[in-house]
């Protein structure tokens, strides 16, 4: 196994707007990368180029030293030793569960004994050994998903691709499947690439998160890092909750500011001196107290653990905050911004 490298990858379907432009990415061996972005951002196209279903119109894909694809030629998917979990599961309805799982081994010409053993192991790993002789049509959505996973498991693939695998499942099953994916990653040691538009899913599963929008790669970082230090408005708006304020930022290197700095930004003098910057403020960093900025409650939603508030500051900008006490719309409060991050 080796590092998967995307080098300046682009894809243009000839629709006037390229689907993917200049995506460069290194995925470390055994890493779990979540490719996150709104629908239509090109993340599935990147995945399909890695799988070999689409040929890049520019750039290259390497697996270690092995050149998988460039503009002129590419290794067909059947030779790549990759596996994929499709959004629709893509189980073959005319084969039993065991035949579905074992098909990659059949194609590779393994002996019957070895094949049966590997099928059994894979089905045990997803806890479906009792269903080996069923047809996919007889299984529930979550069970089908696990069959698809088992099919990925049998061949010890170098790379496993997952295309929104949880999109068709209900909330309860999702959590269970996330657990299964984590186990699967730990067990197989394969490099995994997981396409999703759900940031919570991405953060929960991946060792690295790559955010895409409009065909471009915006940022790649581990989940904690990308949550704490997002780059740019789009990533900031996409990852986690938060409000983006436009504040007069002093000319200094630090991108993180605490209350003492932020308070200065709201003083009347600040307006004349500095240039403005986009600042991300997470709701848990907004503390309602007796001091701080004057604000009006614009909306309040009870979420069970807490109340989520939308506040309107004196200058018209909006903040998000959490509170343990209920507030009514129109209540006047004071808020301290404990921390802000310049995007």
């Amino acid at each position, binding site marked *: 196994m080796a590092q998967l490298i995307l080098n300046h990858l682009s894809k243009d379907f000839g629709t006037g707007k390229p689907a993917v432009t200049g995506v460069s990415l290194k995925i470390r061996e055994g890493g779990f990368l979540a490719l996150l972005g709104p629908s239509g951002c090109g993340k599935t196209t990147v995945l399909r180029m890695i799988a070999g279903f689409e040929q890049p119109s520019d750039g290259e894909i390497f697996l270690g030293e092995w050149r998988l694809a460039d503009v002129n030629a590419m*290794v067909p998917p059947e030779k790549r030793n990759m596996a994929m979990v499709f959004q629709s599961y893509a189980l073959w309805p005319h084969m039993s569960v065991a035949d579905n799982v074992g*098909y990659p081994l059949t194609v590779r010409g393994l002996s019957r004994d070895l094949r049966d053993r590997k099928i059994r192991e894979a089905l045990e790993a997803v806890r479906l050994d009792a269903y080996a002789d069923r047809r996919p049509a007889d299984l529930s959505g979550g069970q089908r998903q696990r069959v698809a996973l088992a099919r990925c498991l049998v061949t010890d693939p170098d790379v496993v691709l997952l295309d929104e695998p949880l999109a068709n499942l209900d909330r309860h099953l999702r959590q269970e499947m996330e657990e299964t994916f984590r186990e699967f990653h730990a067990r197989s040691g394969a490099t995994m690439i997981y396409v999703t538009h759900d940031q919570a899913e991405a953060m929960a599963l991946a060792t690295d998160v790559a955010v895409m929008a409009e065909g471009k790669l915006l940022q790649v970082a581990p989940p904690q890092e990308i949550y704490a230090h997002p780059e740019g408005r789009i990533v900031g708006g996409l990852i986690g909750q938060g409000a983006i304020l436009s504040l007069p930022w002093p000319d200094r290197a630090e991108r993180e500011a605490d209350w003492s700095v932020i308070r200065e930004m709201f003083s009347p003098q600040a307006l004349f001196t500095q240039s403005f910057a986009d600042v991300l403020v997470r709701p848990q960093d907004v503390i309602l107290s007796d001091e701080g900025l004057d604000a009006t409650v614009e909306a309040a939603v009870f979420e069970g653990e807490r109340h989520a508030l939308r506040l309107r500051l004196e200058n018209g900008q909006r903040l998000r905050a959490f509170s343990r006490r209920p507030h009514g719309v129109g209540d006047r409060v004071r808020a301290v911004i404990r921390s802000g991050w310049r995007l």
Partner: protein
Amino acid sequence: MPRFLTLGNSQPRWLFPFVLSVLFLLSILPLGRLAITGILSLVRGGGDGLLSDPGLWAALWNTLTTSFYGMLVSVLIGGSFALLLTLFDIRGKWILGFLFMLPMMIPPQVTALSWVGLTGPSSTLLKAIGMAPPLGSPQPLYSIGGIALLLGVQNAPLVYLALRAGLLALPRDGIEAARLSGASALQVLRDIILPLALPGFAAGAAMAFVSNVGNFGIPAILGIPASIYTLPTLIYAKFASFGPSTFADISLLSGLIALLSVAGLLVEERVLRGRDYRIIGLSGRTAVFQLKGWRAVSEILLWLVLLLILILPFAALVASSLAPAYGVPLSLKTATIHAYEEVLLRQSVTQTAFRNSIGLSLATAFGLLLVTVLMGYVVARSGRRLAALIGALADIPYALPGIVLAVACILLFAAPLPVFGVSIYGTIWILLFAYFSSFLAVSLRPIASAFRQLDPSLEEAARLAGAGFARRMRDILVPLIAPAAGAAVILVFLIACNELTVSALLWSAGTQTLGVAIYNLDDSGSFNLASALSVLVVGMVVVMMFLLELLANRLPKGVVPWRS
């Protein structure tokens, strides 16, 4: 270490060129040859003799009038069946619909024979019940009106299907909204349903017209004895009295038929534009109106029509086949299965015809399957434009009347094949080629729609599993489209086995088909043998249709032609 580098495509390199060459061979080559011969003979003034021939104009006039009146009959019968069976609470819809579709699948010369057996002075059936007109009185069906009537009966199912598809696609909520706005059932029918169903009506009528223009079996059996020629039978007659100008004449005549057909097809295309009535088939039923007191009356009327157009003619056919000799009254005592023994066991001509038709049909059905599985795959995996082009090239030889294609094949193969130096003209191979060309679309349609319905990720998963093209085809794709492939085989077999028009021009001694055998037996006066053979053919048709009906639930919508 670059290895296994190939172009980024799921199809092997040879696939697309293969599909293109098949289309070129089966569609572009014969029709192009016909067009070139037609244009050349026009330019060289070869058409002058033909154009000044009053026979041509009479035939053109006959074709137009029989086709038009036939269309009216089809619209009347097919339209009422479609409206009553789709919109109203008639009992026994399935059996009524199935029986009503039979005339379309029964070969036209058999329809003509059965009606001839039903009416006229020598009708065995009328004699058996003592109602036959006196000997010497004319057979009423040997006339323009008779031809038109039978054309109308034969193609009424086309109107039925087109209109029914249109009616089933009507939005149910639109009808319910009209009811809630206070419209009575009759007003809804008049103001909402009929206007929306009009395109289906018009399309069905256009299809019936095109089918009438190209029909050979009915005007051959009813028209030729009375010297009433239509364009297809004129071609047949010209070809039978072979002369120096024959090739030029028949290419011009078939060009004329092609033009008439294209005009009809354009009308159909225009009214159906943006609405593929074969694919739209809402699962929700259209609103069913209560007929109340009229229900029994309507049901009796429907069954009466079926009795008249299907059951009585078929009874007459059976009666004729059981009669000991032409004109002898049939009773329980005189009835004999002599004719069946004759066609099945003694006559070498009919035995050869059985062998030829069944052999040709099997070879066509399975041979085409090999081609259309690959072609259907390409159609499903290509862009919209390319898929439409492939579909159109495959459709043209089928959409044009068989007589046009037969003439094209004659022109193409009259001379020996270029490289090999042998001629397939007059052999069974020219028939096989013509069948391949003619029925390509019949085989392609169900398979292409099955491929299109297949989730592409099923194949992609197989690719990632490591399966190459041949392997995926064998293990994944073909098993998944198997029901459609089965339907394609049965459909092609059914249509090829009953075919007359193409083989009427292309057969020669030893290569006659069932259609030709029936026609020749009737032509030579062996009416009871022709009837017996026809009864066997109808039996075969019904069995095949039942087989398709059994498959129907596992097939994509629109594959079984009489289900919509």
